[in-house]
């Protein structure tokens, strides 16, 4: 549809212009002058250019840069200039001036007048559009208004031309010409877009501007009223069109001349302007980077790359002075010293940087480290401080050394070199310092992130250990005819050292193990896992508690750390007869409460992992107890007896006994809960400091 519309508009234009041409031929052959035909002809020409303008406007690309538009204008003008030049070469018969009217001397004149007018007319319409885009590219208040005023003035001038004979000079048209000229000058000061061009674009603009200026001076001369065959042709074709073409050409001359001169004046500052632009862009990128970069190496690469870009330095690198254990950040860069790494090398090798840094270590580097102030070396060869740099690596002439300062500590140094002497000025240092500041923040951030990741990792590990520990504890309590069993274990910290377990050794014997691994955390969880393995495997082989503990000692002593131990109490209960065999390896003694008596089963025994197997075997004893109906046996860890808030005595053995004796008639669960309540109230509801484990066994038979 759109294409069809364009084709229709273009067709209309062509058709109208063809009609005009036919009319001209008829006029030439028949020699009749009728006023309304002339007026109709002018209206047709206007309509043709109006449709052409609408067609062009719908396909117009506005987004191109001003310098590209200038290039397009140049190409266009060259085409038009070539067409004009061709007309001079062909040199048609020309015109005769008669009574301030132009009369063609032959059909060829009519043809060439049509052609030249169309070519130049189209050129000027396009040129108006180009000039509009260039003017609007750095648009300000009034830009559009001024341009519209100029266009209106040009159109008014053109229309005015209708009322004069082609070669006649009218007062009104002269006045209008001067007003239009003023508007042209006014508009031609809109050249601020030049400032924002890159250096390359400025150079292009100078070239384009210069040639355009020359070409349009040519057009101005050629189009001057009735002086040349081309001028006469267009004037013959349509005086308003001639005015329009002439005015646009004049404006183009002024504007392109202005462009040329302004760009010329802006050229010396082009480089500085380019740099400022790239500084701003780089700083903007860097500040974005600070919030985005999680990869330390990537960050360092960017910092040095931007340093190169902004100062146009030859090479750059970053020395990072690691704090504590931040060495691991330097995956891709070698460690230079114990605590120094070189990263983000640009156009320089690791060895070279090391030689350079070694050479300037005592003089410059130390001073930068001490004072945290940047240093510029204008000339490597002349400066005493850099005499140490060997000639073999002396491929550069000036150098900037800028520290990365964080909380008054120098955490790194940014180095940049240039081939020329006096390569770095104060502006460079300001910019590099700005980079260094941003890099500092980024490095700090990346270190903080690393730290928090590390902490998170540890947390996760702790969670895993906790989870593992939870799984090591029995998931359910054996349900037995004669025994009412209940258990509870609560770790004080994420991972505790308490452990309890049950196992039916055979149909008649229940093994109950309660223990406490010295220390806490992950290592305790590991020993606990080992203990569980030993219990699950050895308890079925060694059914006597004493024998089992000796074998457990034998298995553990090889693996356990010399300062760690596991205190364990182990009981094997005959679930049919109620005979309980007990052995104790350094653990809190079992509390046994019967109707007539209450007391602790204090057999002798070392903690597992203490002493040799031989001593352990020699000393450990086993006690047998016959449980009577209603008897209660309480296994526990020192979290119960040693529960102690600040400034208050421990919960203690007597208290434990008292509480259990008080509720011995009730169920195991009740006894367990009574104990927990008692400990909690003794702690005055403070959270416990130690793990707390309670296993209650009640003989029901």
């Amino acid at each position, binding site marked *: 549809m759109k294409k069809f519309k364009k084709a229709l508009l273009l067709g209309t234009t062509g058709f109208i212009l063809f009609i005009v041409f036919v009319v001209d031929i008829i006029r030439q052959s028949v020699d009749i002058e009728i006023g309304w035909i002339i007026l109709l002809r002018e209206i047709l020409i206007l309509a043709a250019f109006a449709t052409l303008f609408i067609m062009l406007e719908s396909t117009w690309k506005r987004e191109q840069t001003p310098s590209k538009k200038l290039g397009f204008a140049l190409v266009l003008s060259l085409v038009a200039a070539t067409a004009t030049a061709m007309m001079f070469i062909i040199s048609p018969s020309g015109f005769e001036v008669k009574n301030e009217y132009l009369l063609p001397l032959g059909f060829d004149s009519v043809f060439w007048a049509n052609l030249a007018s169309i070519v130049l007319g189209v050129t000027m319409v396009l040129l108006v559009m180009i000039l509009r885009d260039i003017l609007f590219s750095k648009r300000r208040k009034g830009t559009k208004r001024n341009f519209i005023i100029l266009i209106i003035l040009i159109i008014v001038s053109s229309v005015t031309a209708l009322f004069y004979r082609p070669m006649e000079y009218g007062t009104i048209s002269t006045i209008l010409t001067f007003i239009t000229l003023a508007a042209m000058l006014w508009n031609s000061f809109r050249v601020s877009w030049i400032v924002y061009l890159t250096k390359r674009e400025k150079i292009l603009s100078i070239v384009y501007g210069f040639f355009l200026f020359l070409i349009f001076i040519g057009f101005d001369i050629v189009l001057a009223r009735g002086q040349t065959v081309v001028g006469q042709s267009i004037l013959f074709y349509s005086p308003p069109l001639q005015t329009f073409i002439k005015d646009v050409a004049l404006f183009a001359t002024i504007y392109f001349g202005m462009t040329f001169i302004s760009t010329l004046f802006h050229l010396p500052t082009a480089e500085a302007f380019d740099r400022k632009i790239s500084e701003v862009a780089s700083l903007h990128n860097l500040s974005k980077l600070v919030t985005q970069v999680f990869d330390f190496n990537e960050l360092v690469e960017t910092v040095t790359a931007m340093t190169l870009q902004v100062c146009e330095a030859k090479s750059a690198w970053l020395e990072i002075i690691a704090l504590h254990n931040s060495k691991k950040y330097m995956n891709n860069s070698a460690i230079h010293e114990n605590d120094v790494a070189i990263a983000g090398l640009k156009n320089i090798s690791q060895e070279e940087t090391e030689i350079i840094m070694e050479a300037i270590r005592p003089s410059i580097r130390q001073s930068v480290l001490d004072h945290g102030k940047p240093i510029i070396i204008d000339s490597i060869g002349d400066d005493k401080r850099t005499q140490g740099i060997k000639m073999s690596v002396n491929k550069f002439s000036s150098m900037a050394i800028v520290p990365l300062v964080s909380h008054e500590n120098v955490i790194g140094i940014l180095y940049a070199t240039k081939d020329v002497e006096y390569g770095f000025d104060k502006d460079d240092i300001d910019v590099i310092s700005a980079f260094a500041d941003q890099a500092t923040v980024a490095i700090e951030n990346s270190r903080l992130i690393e730290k928090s990741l590390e902490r998170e990792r540890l947390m996760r590990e702790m969670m895993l250990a906790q989870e593992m520990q939870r799984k090591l504890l029995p998931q359910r309590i054996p349900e037995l005819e004669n025994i009412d069993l209940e258990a509870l274990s609560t770790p004080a910290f994420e991972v505790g*050292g308490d452990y309890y377990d049950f196992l039916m050794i055979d149909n008649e014997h229940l093994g109950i193990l309660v223990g406490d691994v010295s*220390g*806490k955390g992950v290592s305790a969880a590991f020993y606990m896992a080992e203990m569980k393995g030993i219990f699950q495997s050895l308890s079925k082989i060694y059914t006597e508690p004493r024998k089992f503990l000796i074998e457990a000692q034998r298995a553990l002593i090889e693996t356990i750390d010399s300062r*760690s*131990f596991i205190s364990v109490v182990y009981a094997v209960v005959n679930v049919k007869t109620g005979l309980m065999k007990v052995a104790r390896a*350094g653990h809190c003694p079992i509390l046994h409460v019967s109707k007539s008596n209450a007391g602790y089963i204090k057999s*002798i025994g070392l903690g597992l992992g*203490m*002493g040799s197997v031989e001593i352990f075997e020699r*000393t450990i004893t086993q006690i047998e107890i016959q449980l009577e109906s209603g008897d209660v046996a309480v296994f526990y860890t020192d979290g119960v007896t040693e529960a102690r808030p600040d400034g208050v005595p421990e919960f203690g053995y007597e208290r434990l006994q008292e509480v259990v004796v008080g509720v011995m008639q009730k169920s195991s669960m009740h006894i367990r809960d009574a104990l927990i309540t008692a400990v909690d109230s003794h702690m005055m509801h403070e959270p416990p400091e130690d793990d707390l484990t309670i296993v209650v066994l009640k003989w029901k038979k």
Partner: protein
Amino acid sequence: MSNFKVAIRENQKIQVVDLKGYLDAHTAPELEKLFQTLIDKKVFNIVVNCKDLNYISSAGLGVFMAYIEDVRKNNGDIKLSNMSSKIYNVFDLLGFPLLYDITSDEAEAIQKFCSIK
């Protein structure tokens, strides 16, 4: 914060270590360091006076276990003395009296060292 103190006295080529306050996971490294320096100085006859020791945790007990073997290999010993009954109960529970000489009095411990020689 430091509610634990160690001090050493020399008594006829026998080092007496005085413990004071709480010996737990936080303070145990202090005692550990002291034992290490004594062993480095080839001092193997050590008496630990627990008169002012108020509390000992499993980590504290671990310190004694860590060095007893080293010391005994060099014909020395770590003897413990002057424990309060509460502290003794903790040592006793784990069976320490089976492995260590625990005397009621410092002089008695020193005497035991001398009588061996």
